[in-house]
Every structure is written in C-alpha cells, then in structure tokens.
C-alpha cells in the first residue's frame, strides 16, 4: 500500500510542477515577444521562478520516497 501511495503522490507532484512551470514559460515567452529588449531580464526571472517551483515539487518527491521505506508489518 505504501508503494501505491508513493507512486500516486509522485505523479500528482509532477502534474502540479508541470502545470506551474508551463504557465510560467508561456508568460515569459509572451512577455519577450511583446518587448524583445526585456528578453534577458525575463529569462533570468523565469529561471529563478522555475527553480523555486521545482523545489516545491521536490518536497513532495522526498515525502513519497519516505513512503517507499515504510514497510507494512506482513510484507
């Protein structure tokens, strides 16, 4: 049961991170197409924000990994 919980949790975490970073990349692209001079600034901000969102997803992954090591009594 722990394995099932870990797998589902990891999948949900990846959905969350993918949606978040996808929206972020879309906004950054739109911003740089409206104003090409700001492309460098936007790229830096995008990378920082992507790393922060990924950090949150990794919290969830660490919790899922903890589930892998908790074995039920009769396993």
């Amino acid at each position, binding site marked *: 049961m*722990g*394995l099932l919980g870990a797998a589902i949790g990891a999948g949900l975490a990846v959905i969350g991170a993918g949606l978040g970073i996808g929206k972020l990349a879309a906004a950054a692209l739109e911003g740089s197409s409206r104003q090409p001079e700001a492309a460098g600034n936007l790229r*830096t901000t995008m*990378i*920082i924000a992507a*790393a922060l969102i*990924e*950090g949150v997803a*990794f*919290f969830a*992954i*660490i919790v899922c990994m903890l589930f*892998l*090591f908790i*074995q039920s009594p009769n*396993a």
Partner: protein
Amino acid sequence: MSEENLHVEKAESTENPSQKINQLLEGLGDHYEFNYSTFHFDILPYIFYDEGNFHFFSNKKALEESGQYTFSHHKPVRTSDHHSPDLDLSITNLVAFQFIAAILIIAAFLNIAKKYKKNATKAPSGFQNLMESLVVFVKDEVIRPNLDEKTTKKLLPYFLTLFFFILTLNLIGMVPGGHAATGSLGLPLALALIAFFVINIVAIKQSGIKHWLEHLLGGAPVGLAPLMIPLEIMGMLVKPFALTVRLFANMVAGHVVLYILIGLIFLFGIYFSPVLVGFSIFIYFLEILVSFLQAYIFTMLTVIFVSLAIGESHEEEHSH
C-alpha cells in the same frame, strides 16, 4: 555510477522492490572507504569521540585489529555493547571528495591569480579566460544588481566560494566513477546553515540587534507579538530548509533516474539497450545543465535573502 550495485540487484532479484531500491540508494550515499566506481580503497581514517575519549584509527584494518570496534550492517559499533559511537567524525567517502574539490578549486584559483599578476595588462586566454568569465558573471549578474557596494565587497569571497564549491562538487559527481557530495543530506544542510548565519549576522551588523528583533514582529504592533513571532521565526527557518531540499533533491533525482534507466536494461532485455542508453545520455546532459543551474540558484537565492534582510532595515530607517 557504480556497476557493482547493478550486479547486486540482479543477483538478489527475489527480494521485494523496496530492498532493491535501498541497495541502489546506498550506492548514492556515504561509504566508509574511498570509492571510485567499483574500486574500494581502504585508506580513510576513522575518528570517533566516544565516552569522553578521542579514538583515531588509520583505516578499517586498524579498526578491526584494535578490537574495540566491530562492524554491523556496515556501521562501526562498540564490541562491548554494540552501540554506535557517540560522535562519528570519520573521514568518509563524500568528505574525501569534498577535500578533492577544495584542492581543485584552490589550485585553479591560485594558478589564475598568479597569471593575472604576471600579465595584468594583456587580455586573458585559455583557462584563465574561462574562470575569469565565470567570476565576472557571478559578480556582475548575481551580486551587483542586488546588493550595495559595501556589502558586495565584504561578501564577494563568500559568494564566489559558495558558487564554485557547489559547482565543482556537482561536476565531480558527473564524472564517471565520481560521487556527488551534494547528493547526501549533510552538505546542503551545512551550506544552508552557513547561509542562514551569514544572512542574519550581516543584518545585525548593518542595523543593530534591537532592529533585528523588531523585525521578528514584522511591522505589526507589539500586542500581536505572540502571534507574529512564531510565524516570523518559521519564515526565517523555512528559507534555509528550502535551499537544502532543492539542492539535495535535484542532485539525487538526477542520479537515481540514471541508475533506473540503466537498470531497465535488466528488465527489458538487451535489445532495448540502444533506446535506453540514448535516453541516459540525454538525461546526462540535462544533469550537467542542472549542476550549473543549482549552483547558480543557490548563490542567487542567498544573495536575494541577504539583500532582503539588509533592505528592510534600510527602508524602515528612511521611512521613520
């Protein structure tokens, strides 16, 4: 990447999955002997502080010969009561790799400094050019836009050390046979704690300790202190925690994905190996990018936290 872990995994395929994963992750963790891919060198000393005495053994053979300690489950325990020692300060495999990284960085930068002193008027070339461009990148793109001149001068060595230390450790983990010291929980935690102290000590030195304590109130009236102070303290502590987990999880995730992709060859048979090896090469290049990116993100976030800690005290001075 250590092939011996994959051999062990194949041989004991009757065990349940979580034990196989345990073995894989053990390869990524810390060992008491110096590891280079499948070679173990028994050269690292064991240092314990146990029951009020320091014990020093030069390698594993000396430890077992002395009779005071034995091994159980790959960990040294006292022979008398099978307790692990109180404080284990041994030089383990990852500590040895950190020393290697430190020696590499010191050698590289002393070399560049000497070359710079010798021809200060000529344009740099070769290795000096590469290092100088990285240093100037960190100084002008990461530190200067966020901090004022005085703090930049004071903290520039710390930030440069942080960036290059994390970068070198990550890249050593990428070399075939190397182990990434940032892939165990201890090193990112230590770096984040140091960053925590730097942030708070710089803030205190800038505007005094009374101001810093007033910060814990967060601008609310004093009556709300029992509510605000725990919240502000948690906000202060979550920043180093996030730095730790981000660096650690990024590095571990990359290596685990590589192990699993190669391990899938055992599951799917030899005819799938071109696809899987091609995928692994792609993930390998992604990991090199992630090494640079994580060093950059760690440094940039520490700079931003320092600038937040200083900037708030400045704003309050001007606004009152």
